[in-house]
């Protein structure tokens, strides 16, 4: 067999030139790679520097301990937003992690097997062939279901967070109006635990009130025209005194405190303990947290699946080979081995939750003038990203700086969280 022309031809000059060109191209490409890869570092640096420059002047203790202020922006802070974020993310974690990890375990560890149907078989005489058919059908069915759930999760991962916000609005805030609407003067349709209804009436002592337990009456308003029993906010039970306008007011502070103007009106006031629970949730931090849980659920699931997938199959085989059930294998072998990965995924997804603003805007609105964290489950809250969104949208220089400072706080928080993830990944994968 003769050697082909292309190989035999002595074309060393042209070939050498070609080799040189190729090497040069490779070199240029390498440089391009380096340049582009460094670009992302540059972007990050520019971002961090520009934000630090803007925000450094507003970084102070006030920023961490005060809340938003319209009148004294110089002293405005993000305390209530930090609390709000904390609470909302807490709810989010409590809801998303079990659900997400559970789903991941189901998808990864409980892959469909041919069903056993042991007892059914004993009860229904169908014949071996028929049973085989049924088992095969069931098997195919469950496989199809598994595939469907998996596809569904990839789809959920692609759904924009604002759409989750809309879902949360219908599902948690209004609950499709199944429980009526929440209005300001009537009690919500369905409420449990942790709420006592009073009429709150201003007393003569400035800024102080007396409370009259509501008892059986369902009216929203009480008119005080006769002496009756009442409670001081301290819980002390007292006899109400009445004062008619035009007569002199009582001198003693103690007396003034339990005296109200004759004919004074009291509106309903509901004292809520932290576990006050109501349907629908309304614009509450609970609804916001649950909505965020929807947003990060696919992230948690996918990360946990990755972690479980990276457990070597040989570990599973070893355990099953020793006669462990699938759940025993999962609990004793797979979960312990996957925990670092799952934790990392969980923490990173919490980082995502902390930074989410769009769904929160939908659920809680853009209001930021709240000066405390949520007081009960149905209370509303401000979050850091929403605060930043609001501040950044303002034109006053001082709010711009505050926004930048708040961003620094937020980024530092996220950085801490990420380092925690890295640390945990490291620690847990060591032993």
């Amino acid at each position, binding site marked *: 067999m003769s050697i082909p022309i292309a190989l035999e031809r002595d074309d060393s000059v042209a070939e050498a030139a070609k080799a040189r060109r190729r090497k040069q191209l490779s070199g240029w490409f390498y440089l391009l790679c380096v340049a582009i890869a460094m670009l992302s570092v540059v972007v990050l640096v520019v971002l961090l520097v520009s934000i630090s420059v803007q925000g450094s002047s507003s970084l102070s203790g006030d920023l961490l301990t005060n809340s938003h202020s319209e009148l004294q922006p110089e002293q405005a802070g993000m305390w209530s937003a930090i609390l709000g974020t904390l609470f909302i993310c807490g709810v989010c974690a409590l809801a998303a992690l079990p659900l997400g990890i559970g789903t991941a375990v189901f998808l990864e560890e409980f892959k469909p097997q041919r069903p056993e149907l042991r007892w059914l078989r004993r009860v229904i005489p169908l014949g071996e062939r028929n049973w085989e058919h049924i088992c095969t059908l069931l098997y195919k069915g469950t496989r199809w279901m598994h595939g469907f759930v998996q596809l569904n999760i990839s789809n959920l991962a692609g759904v924009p967070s604002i759409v989750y916000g809309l879902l949360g609005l219908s599902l948690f805030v209004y609950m499709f109006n199944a429980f009526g609407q929440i209005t300001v003067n009537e009690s919500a349709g369905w409420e449990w635990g942790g709420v006592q209804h009073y009429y709150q009436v201003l007393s003569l002592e400035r800024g102080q009130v007396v409370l009259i337990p509501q008892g059986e009456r369902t009216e929203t308003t009480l008119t005080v025209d006769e002496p009756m029993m009442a409670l001081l906010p301290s819980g002390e039970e007292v006899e109400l005194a009445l004062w008619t306008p035009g007569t002199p007011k009582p001198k003693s502070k103690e007396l003034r405190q339990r005296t109200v103007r004759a004919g004074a009106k009291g509106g309903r006031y509901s004292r809520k303990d932290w576990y006050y629970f109501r349907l629908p949730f309304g614009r509450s931090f609970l609804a916001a947290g649950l909505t965020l849980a929807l947003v990060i659920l696919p992230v948690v699931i996918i990360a946990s699946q990755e972690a479980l997938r990276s457990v070597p199959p040989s570990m599973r085989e070893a355990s099953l*080979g*020793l006669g462990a059930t699938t759940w025993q294998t999962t609990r004793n072998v797979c979960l312990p081995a996957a925990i670092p990965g799952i934790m990392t995924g969980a923490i990173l997804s919490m980082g995502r939750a902390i930074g989410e603003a769009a769904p929160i805007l939908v659920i809680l609105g853009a209001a930021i003038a709240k000066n405390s964290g949520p007081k009960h489950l149905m209370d509303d809250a401000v979050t850091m990203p929403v605060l930043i969104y609001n501040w950044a949208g303002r034109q006053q220089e001082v709010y711009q700086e505050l926004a930048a400072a708040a961003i620094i706080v937020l980024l530092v928080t996220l950085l801490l969280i990420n380092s925690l993830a890295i640390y945990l990944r490291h620690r847990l994968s060591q032993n």
Partner: protein
Amino acid sequence: MDPDSNPKPGAQPAATPGQANTDGAAADAASTCIEIGDFNAWYGDYQAIHQLSLSVPRNQVTAFIGPSGCGKSTLLKWINRMNDIVPNAHAKGTLTLKEDESGQEVDVLSPSTDAVALRRRIGIVFQKPNPFPKTIYQNVAFGPRLHLNASRGEMDELVEWALKKAALWDEVKDRLHQSALGLSGGQQQRLCIARAIAIGPNILLMDEPCSALDPASTSRVEDLIFELREQYSIVIVTHSMQQASRVSDRTAFFYQGRLIESGATEQIFTMPREQRTEDYVSGKFG
């Protein structure tokens, strides 16, 4: 039983070469512990095993040999239903486990057979040592904890017994509570064997247990197999003809999903009935 003793009586019945597939089935029924008949196995549409019949004798070592991909591991995994977890794997035929000499039988493939209980009676050891990332003690105690109600003392005793049985006790007795991952490959493999026998199986399946080991470890594991034969029926898959001839009493040669020939090891290696067997054991391919 002497490690060097030869095949059990009745292990070499007269069989015409054409009937190679059924030859194994003719092994003495009284001492058979696994009976396989007309067995077919698929992965999805791909048939990995075709019409295979074979019987595995009790308290002997049976070696499965054959080139890569011929279905040795597949058959092994079906014996203790390990293939349940492989999507798409399914099988047809009979695969019967004869519990003890009294003849109590378990239909392995029947969906009504509890795979978990089955695997307790049939231990398995894999090609690559796969200890759990736990302590040595925990590794051995893993199975017993699942299956036995044992006191602390009993458990200690059991772990010691299993490790001694696996010829590992002397090497690890001082570091029972250290990670098993710190052991050498050969030690890990013996640990896996200890772990498998600690649940008290009757049968031990081994899928190329030495292929990842160095020569020294290999010979220790081989010695161990000799010893274990007294109490367990052992099936070993190996790609090394030498190993098969060293450790096994009976050998089955697989090729492309079919059993080509099975019989006493000596016979297979010295006067095989089939040309392909001869080609294989003499190294013409594989």
